[in-house]
């Protein structure tokens, strides 16, 4: 069992003719993901080298109607990404995973407003995220597939490469993953910790959860309260940026300690108060989870 993606996923890659889109579409195909279509406006009917078996369309609508796509992954450059997300939603895609980094906040504010109002049934992940993977079934995004192993740990993370770090550690000590969800590091995003935690809490295939947060915002504090109330499975966590200076944006647009808010120590305190075990260093994430199983 798993959440969000699996054997039923029929993927369309928006921006498949670009070099990044093509590279990771190939990675998905090699992993066994059912990639049913590619979309790049103006490239309908063409072939992408190495992906000749996958039909290219001009619109997502065609990918849904003609190839049966139900999930989209977006590799479209930032200036066009908001348009691509809304196109996917308007075309009947149920799950939209946006990998693109650097989308202006103003664009995402508008996108979120439209999605909340007009497409409440659509689930979005990202932007600026590594994607979602259910090991052994379906890989969508930019994560290296080989580090994952099927199993029972649900992983949810604001950081891309830290997700790989914890997955690698988990696999190394023999703890497989049900699904790993990268929710991304932007301030305005689709799925947040709480939605992901709720999915894992209800998933019979998930027996424990690892959560990776970072400085900035208050999502981790809200997640801690949610876990205390609703999650009965063991949860361990790590917070990145414990030594980050205030007022400096640490790469992610969302990762900034400002106005005295968003510091790692407050997040760690909130998590520990909710009974969640927090890993002291990024090298001990998997061992920390193992210690409470």
């Amino acid at each position, binding site marked *: 069992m798993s959440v969000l993606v699996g054997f039923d996923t029929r993927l369309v890659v928006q921006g498949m003719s670009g070099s990044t889109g093509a590279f990771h579409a190939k990675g998905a195909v090699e992993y066994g993901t059912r990639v049913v279509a590619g979309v790049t406006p103006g490239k309908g009917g063409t072939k992408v080298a190495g992906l000749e078996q996958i039909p290219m369309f001009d619109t997502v609508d065609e990918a849904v109607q003609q190839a049966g796509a139900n999930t989209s992954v977006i590799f479209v450059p930032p200036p066009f990404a908001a348009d691509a997300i809304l196109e996917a939603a308007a075309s009947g895609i149920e799950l939209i995973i946006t990998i693109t980094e650097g989308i202006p906040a103003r664009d995402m504010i508008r996108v979120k407003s439209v999605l909340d109002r007009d497409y409440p049934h659509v689930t979005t992940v990202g932007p600026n995220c*590594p994607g979602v993977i259910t090991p052994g079934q379906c890989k969508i995004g930019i994560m290296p597939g080989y580090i994952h192993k099927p199993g029972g740990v649900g992983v949810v993370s604001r950081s891309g490469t830290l997700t790989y770090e914890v997955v690698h550690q988990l696999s190394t000590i023999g703890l497989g993953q049900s699904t790993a969800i990268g929710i991304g590091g932007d301030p305005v995003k689709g799925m947040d910790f709480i939605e992901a935690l709720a999915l894992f809490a209800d998933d019979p295939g998930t027996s424990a959860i690892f959560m990776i947060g970072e400085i900035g915002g208050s999502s981790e504090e809200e997640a801690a309260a949610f876990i205390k109330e609703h999650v009965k499975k063991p949860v361990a966590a790590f917070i990145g940026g414990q*030594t980050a200076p205030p007022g400096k944006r640490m*790469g992610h647009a969302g990762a900034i300690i400002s106005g005295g808010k968003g510091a790692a120590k407050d997040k760690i305190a909130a998590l520990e108060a909710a009974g969640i075990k927090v890993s002291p260093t990024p090298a001990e994430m998997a061992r920390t989870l193992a210690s409470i199983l």
Partner: protein
Amino acid sequence: MKIHEYQGKELLRKYGVPVPFGIPALSVEDALAAIPRVQKESGGDVVVVKAQIHAGGRGKAGGVKVARTRVDAEEAVKRIFGMTLVTPQTGPAGKKVQRLFVEQGLAIAKEYYLGMLLDRATGRVTVMASTEGGVDIEEVAATHPEKILKESVNPAVGWQDYQARRLAKRLAMTPAVTGELVKFLRLLTRCYEDMDCSMLEVNPLVVTQDGKVLALDAKINFDDNALYRHPELAEWRDPNEEDPQETAAKQWDLSYIALEGNIGCMVNGAGLAMSTMDIIKFYGGQPANFLDVGGGATTEKVTAAFKIITTDPAVKAIFVNIFGGIMKCDTIANGIIAAVKETGLSMPLVVRLEGTNVELGKKLLADSGLNILAAADMADGAQKAVAAVAALKGGAK
């Protein structure tokens, strides 16, 4: 991206937002010459001399002077220009004042706080207002959160006048001042939206004794992700406000922040880069920087990143920590090799590679003949880098 107060006010004026008359100056001479011009234009003797640095807390640090006479103003210009201001936001080293803003003094009846920023919890821009103007708003937020009033902007319709009227009522403004605030906020919110601001703070917003509403200060940050829509903002960059390495990093679209330590870090991904800093500190070392080379880096970009780290004179060892996803390990390896060929390598280099194309990356580094300390994982790498710096210190004794 941050800009100076005088630039922020120039932008506000462009949008019709009322601001006091003022003249920016890049030298003492220009600032002295500005004093009589500001007095003449405003029709009053009082001028305010304000240090222009990007950090807040200037007033408390002695960087703002209200001068009642020309002589007082001249004295203030000479005193403030060139002084080093230390505020909670500058760090202990402080910031040298190299720009001044000479502005008309106003007869102020009342001061308020007004701010706009993105509320992450709702995914909407929020306008905040408070009667506690001109003071440290973060302290107000901590001690009296009920004194900060909020109105969020609905992206479907934008800011509405009723929201300004509601704020004015709760701020106990008179009907005449309410009308002024409605106009003020209509223009301010348009500026925020059009210009892709990420923060716009007017602290204080003032009502003058003759009932006018003006922005007495303006602190504006722009969304870095949206700068491509506003190429004209590039000329407002102030290189004196930026670390030279950070400026170089920007040219290569690298995310770099200078820190106080001596272990240079090159990492992919913001979360891993932050955690690399954390783990270096955990093992007793001090990171010299935060550097995220990003996902789609080319060999050239990695080479540039490596050079930026090595040009920081404080760096005594380098720790490269890569978990390749979108970033391929062979790209990193080739970038390191090219950089070292170009500039040489005079310090210990610890490399931890994992992820996409890891075997190819490791082989490239092994075949290069470079003296690299390979790390098994990030804990091992951090410990090796910390030990390398400690060994250097021991050798120097």
